[in-house]
Structures are given as structure tokens and as C-alpha cells.
């Protein structure tokens, strides 16, 4: 699913002198990987590199058989739209849209995605799966944090991505809800046969993943 070789990345000097080096990294299709480690060790940066948001200085990144490192800006954007799903740490739901429109949002901002009746049907199915079908028309501000988290998951998987990248997907939840949300996420990913890379600081959840990489021990360098 993902293969990274000889990756090197450094932010511009103005943003610090951190350098991320990953000699080799692999992720299998359907694998659920957790990345943990202290802040500033490059966990989120790795997600950005995989997503093609930041281009590497050196090395290669292959995702789903495509060379992300060699893509043009527009090709990377198209790849991001069609093959990846995102769950952000602060969810980034738009409060001026209701739940349904938040989940459908990728379809409204990307001409590459067509908002067909089939997509709407999948939306209803996803909402039913997470137990929020009756709240589709409600503004997201009226939802609880756990419900908002589930909406973010739905948004990430609605486009049927091959890979979901999640940055602290359960950060703001209580322990009970964390497990529930993770179950929802895994169940949904299973149904969509998607892989997952999740950045998390929550050690209680690590046991639920197929593999865990601790960036404290991983090969990286801070100059």
C-alpha cells in the first residue's frame, strides 16, 4: 500500500531546523498503523508527506502504486481527493453546514468528485452505521463531541479512499468514547477495505492497532 525509501524532509529555515529522515517504511493494504512519540518528532509531517501536501527533499513515496514524490501539484491534489481520507485533530467541521453537508463537503469542493444519488445513498448508509442517521440535517454545532468525531470519520471515508490519515482522531474524547469511536473507525475502514495511519499519543489505544511505530525510537534526527 505504501512504500517509502530514503525519505528526507526539512522545513524551510524560518520554521526551524528539524529534519525528518526515514530510510524505509512500508504499510500493507488494510493495515492499521499507529504512530506515537513525543511532539516535534515528525509524526504529522510524515502524514503530510504521504498525502503529498509537502514534497520530500529526497527519497520516494509510493502510495497505492502511485509515485507521490514525482507528481505535479494538480496530480497530487487529484490523488489526495480520490485516494485519501483525512481525520484532523480538531476535526475541522464547518459550523455553517449541517451534518450531511459536512460529510458531503469533499464532493462540493472537488470537481473531480461527482455528487451522485449513489453518493447520497452511501452517506445515509454511513450515517446509519454510526447511529446518526436521524441527525443528518442538524447543524454540527448541535452535535456532541463524540458525534462530531463520527461525522469526521464519515467525511474521511465517504469518498471510499484507499488510505485514511488520522491525526489524533480521539484526542478530545473521554476514555469510553475513545474506544467507541475507534471501533466505529475500524468497522468503517473494514467495510471500505481501507488502510489507516493514525497519529496518537493515547497509549491505551495502541493495542487496537495492527502495528505501532514509536517515533522516539524510530530513525529520525533533530539537528
Amino acid at each position, binding site marked *: 500500500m505504501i512504500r517509502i525509501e530514503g525519505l528526507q524532509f526539512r522545513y524551510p529555515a524560518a520554521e526551524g531546523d528539524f529534519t525528518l529522515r526515514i530510510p524505509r517504511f512500508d504499510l500493507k493494504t488494510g493495515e492499521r498503523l499507529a504512530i506515537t512519540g513525543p511532539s516535534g518528532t515528525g509524526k504529522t509531517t510524515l502524514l503530510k508527506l504521504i498525502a503529498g501536501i509537502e514534497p520530500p527533499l529526497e527519497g520516494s513515496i509510493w502510495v497505492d502504486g502511485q509515485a507521490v514524490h514525482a507528481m505535479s501539484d494538480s496530480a497530487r491534489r487529484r490523488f489526495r481527493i480520490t485516494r485519501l481520507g483525512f481525520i484532523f485533530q480538531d476535526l475541522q467541521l464547518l459550523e455553517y453546514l449541517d451534518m450531511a453537508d459536512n460529510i458531503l463537503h469533499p*464532493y*462540493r469542493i*472537488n470537481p473531480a468528485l461527482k455528487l451522485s444519488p449513489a453518493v447520497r445513498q452511501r452517506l445515509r448508509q454511513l450515517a446509519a452505521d454510526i447511529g446518526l442517521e436521524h441527525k443528518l440535517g442538524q447543524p454540527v454545532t448541535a452535535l456532541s463531541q463524540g458525534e462530531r468525531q463520527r461525522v469526521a470519520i464519515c467525511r474521511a471515508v465517504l469518498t471510499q479512499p484507499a488510505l485514511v490519515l488520522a491525526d489524533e482522531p480521539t484526542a478530545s474524547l473521554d476514555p469510553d468514547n475513545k474506544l467507541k469511536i475507534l471501533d466505529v473507525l475500524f468497522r468503517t475502514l473494514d467495510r471500505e477495505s481501507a488502510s489507516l495511519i493514525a497519529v496518537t499519543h493515547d497509549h491505551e489505544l495502541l493495542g487496537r492497532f495492527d502495528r505501532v511505530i514509536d517515533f522516539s525510537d524510530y530513525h529520525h534526527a533533530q539537528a
Partner: protein
Amino acid sequence: MRQDFYLAWRHLRHYRIRSLVLIACLSLMGALPIAMHVLLDQGESKLLARARATPLVVGARASGLDLTLNALYFGNPDLPRTTMAEFDRVDDSSWALALPIYSRFVVKGQPLVGITLDYLDYRQLTVDQGETLTTLGDAVLGANAATALGLKVGDRLLTTPGNLFDLAGIYPLKLRITGILGRRDNPDDQAIFIDLKTAWIIEGLGHGHEAPVSPGKNGARPATASPVTFTEVTPDNVASFHFHGDPATYPISAVIAVPKDTRASTLLRGRYLDDTQPDQLVVPLEITRHLLDNIFRIRDLFDLVLALVGIATLLALSLVFWLSLRMRREEMRTLFLLGSSRLTLLRLILAESLLLGLASLALGFFWVRLAQQGLNESTLRFFMH
């Protein structure tokens, strides 16, 4: 683009107060100068139409503007008066149709104008309800005056002095409303028209009273109090009304002269070229154009002020827009991460701006229409006061 407009609409609707304030500001910014120009254009057109319909005006030598305003708009009641002799002079010349006007009185805020029936004919004022002036004490109301005073045909209207100390002014006379004129959208709508003679009765130049006590056998009359003066003209007492003095000396405020042709006009104007004469002749069209020139000079200044205010408002709105975009930076970052291109982001902003612009345009159009309707009736009052 449909999706862009959908998202823009949802955003504007969610932050509706901010959106409405922006729309209101933008619409007012556009509508104010337009409404002002509409007002001025309407004013210009109405003023010129009235002036064209009143070719020449003869009156006592004073400000030509005051004389014009009095004869055409029944303003400036304190204008120096001329006399019926001047009317006779114009009338006898047979160069023009002469229409005397006595516009000195105001009753409950409406001008009380003494005229002859020729005035109604010349201005094409037709009686919509009731009948025209037939006898002393009759009054016909302009459409707006009727509404303002709440009077209908058959009602009475008492003339009263403007104030307690106006001892030489209006004599109380109960006028009988005999008719209400059709609306003409000009100053005649505001007026209460009475016959010139009725105006002179109010002025105190004519009156009716009980017949004096008959002389005794020796020819002497008993010492009694003054006979009772009537305050209303009725069929029973109309015969007792009479005037004192030479009718040629009776006051009027102006004579509207409608010359038969250009030659007659030139001849008539030639009569009043001598500045030492007590009377003058003015051409209302010239006076009005001069007045409008002054108004338009002010309009140019006002336009400049509006332009500066507009620029300042635009800058303020741009700042608001920029701050709003900064507040939405996180949202834009999310859209970018979700795969939105810069072009899509730009399209979203453009769609929102376009919706705001269209709503402002619609509201601005509504303001202008509202101003047009509201100003229709008050434009002339605005210019004349």
C-alpha cells in the same frame, strides 16, 4: 459553480447578521447617490414643468425668486403686494390672458389662495367631487389639502389668524367646502382655492352685517353698538356683503400672464423694463433655471462628498472582508487539505462576493424605488422649503 454558490449561500445564511450588515452597507452606499440624483432629477423636471406652464408673472418689485415662488408655489406669503390695477393693466392690453392670484393666507398649514375661475381652467384643475366656486365663501380643495385637513364636500373650514397678534391679518370666515379637485401632482394639490373676493373679505376689505337700525322720524339713528358682522356667507346674508374703497386698489400678490404669442410676450416684457416702476415682470423659467443652477452646484459638491464617503466605506468593507478571510484561514486550510485547489477557494470567495453584491444590488434598487415613491409627493416641498 452550483456547489460554490450553495456553500457560499450556506455561509452567508449562517452568519446572517454579518451578511445583512454588509448588504445594508453596500446597498446604501450605492443607493444614496442614486436616490439623491433621482430626487434632483424629479425636482428639476417638476420645477421646469411648472415654470413652463407659467410663462410670465407680474408682481410688486421685490425678489424675482420670491415672486415666482409665491405665484407658482404659493410660498412667501409676506411678499409685497401689487393691486388689481396691475391686473387690469395686463388684462386691458389684450396681449395676454391675465390671472390674478392672492396668496397671502395659510390655514392649518395649507395655503389659502384667492383666484378667479380662469385660474382653474388655465391649470386644467377639474373638480373631482362636488362643484366649483359659485359664490362668496366657497372653497375648493386641492387633493392633498383635502387629505391633510380631513375635509370633504359640505364641511366647513374656519380661517384663523396665524397668531394672536396678527391683528391686521385674517378675519375669521367660515368657508364652505364645495368641491375637491383631482390630483395633479403639482403645488395646486396643496392649496385651498377661494374666489378673489372671498380672499378680500378675509383680508377685511369686504364684509356683511345686519342692516343698520332704521332712522327715526327726525332722521336720527339710535345710538347702538356696531351691527353684527357675519362670519359665514349664507344664502340669507350673501346680499349684505359689500366692499369698501376702489377695487383697483385691492391687493393681489401676483398676476400670471399667458401671452398670446411671442410678440405679445415681448411687448408685455417691454412694459416692465423700467426699474423705477413699482411692479416688475419675471419669467419663471429663467428664475427656475437660475435656481436649479445653484442647486446643481451644490449637487456637484455633494457628489464629491459622497464619493469620498463611498471610498472610505469601500475601504472599511474591504478591511472587514479581509479580516473575515483571515478568520476563515483555518477553514481554507481544511478545504486545501481535503483537495480543494486555489482556484476553487477563489471561486468560493467570488461566489460569496457575488451573492453579497447581488443582494446589495437588489436592496439598493429597492431603496431607490422606495425613495422615488416617497419623494414623488415631497420633492417639490423639499425644493420650495
